């Protein structure tokens, strides 16, 4: 039986806010609220992982390892964001390392159970995957904006005074 609090939290997060009651109950059944202290590692780049997260409060940094440069911070995850979709959209390993930056509250959902839920109720599955796609699309746009490097200097070099 899901904690009543999970239902409430799921209703507050954009990802699940508009789910029909039945789907919400099903989702809540495989979800759990977790409080994580700052500095905790949720998962590591290159490892398989079993869960997907919805952030309630706090923040998490995503880092990728680049030989010669060490860990490079890619993105900070904040309240309302979806985190760790690799186990849901692919069966491979995590693409980044996730570490909490402060005391963080999140909803943890078992990926396997989530996929099963989608499989068994295609309507709920469609809705969840649609939400997943929307979240991915927002993330992709944000990544593109980062790529554009909008605040970079774009003017050619000025000749030094003779």
């Amino acid at each position: 039986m899901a904690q009543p609090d999970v239902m409430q939290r799921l209703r507050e997060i954009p990802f699940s806010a508009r789910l029909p009651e039945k789907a919400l109950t099903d989702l809540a059944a495989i979800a759990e609220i977790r409080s994580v202290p700052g500095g905790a590692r949720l998962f590591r780049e290159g490892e398989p992982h079993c869960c997907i997260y919805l952030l309630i409060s706090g923040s998490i940094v995503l880092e990728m390892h680049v030989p010669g440069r060490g860990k490079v911070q890619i993105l900070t995850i904040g309240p309302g964001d979806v985190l760790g979709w690799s186990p849901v959209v692919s069966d491979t390993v995590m693409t980044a390392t996730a570490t909490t930056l402060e005391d963080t509250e999140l909803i943890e959902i078992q990926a396997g159970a989530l996929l099963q839920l989608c499989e068994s109720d295609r309507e709920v599955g469609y809705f969840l995957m649609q939400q997943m796609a929307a979240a991915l699309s927002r993330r992709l746009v944000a990544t593109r904006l980062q790529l554009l490097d909008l605040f970079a200097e774009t003017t050619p070099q000025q000749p030094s005074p003779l």
Partner: protein
Amino acid sequence: MSVRPRLGVFKFASCDGCQLSLLSVEDELLEIAARLEIVYFLEASSHYEPGPYDVALVEGSITTREDEQRIREIREQTRFLITIGACATAGGIQALRNWADCDEFVRAVYPSPQYISTLSTSTAIADHVPVDFELRGCPINTRQLIEVISSLLKGCRPRTPVHSVCLDCKRRGNVCITVAQGIPCMGPITQSGCGALCPTYDRGCYGCYGPARQPNPQSLTDQLVSQGASTKELIPLLRNFNSNAPEFRRESDRLEGHRTDE
């Protein structure tokens, strides 16, 4: 007195006309000489000093192996390299050889062709080394040259207009000779710089300053063809002092029917 920046003036395949422009600025030349030390300018003085140079003005195009080597040496010794004139910026009139058999020219012109060693092409300086600024024209406009030098002295990026000759014509109050007299004119696709000299005297623009920025040569030649011009007349319009400037070259090649895409 503080050390003056060192200026070198260098010549490659060319008629020397652009260097002469510098000599003919007279009033300003004294001012320039006061603010820049002219250390290499064979046209003006037999005294010369080795590099490095703060500014190099380079006239002429690359037509020999030696040229290719020498321009690299100049580049290495120069902070700000400015190419001056149609030869240096587009290969000049001598780039017409790019469409012909150079060996045949050599045999026809020289009694002892075996002494002649040349490349089969004439190309712009920028095709060989990085260039910091190009000053167009055949010859260059001395006013523009002064502006470029004075910009550099101030530490400013030189800027010369990239618009068409038409704008200058209209600022002068000229009547368009193409529209009113049917005279073919390169003005609409040619970069400003001369102050619309030829159209002011009822002559079509020769395109001395090369292509204006983002020109549309095909539309102009289409129009001239529709008014009765033949391709044979149009090709020499484009193959003139700036024949090897990419936009003019592509259009003349298109007209000739053997497009040479880069």
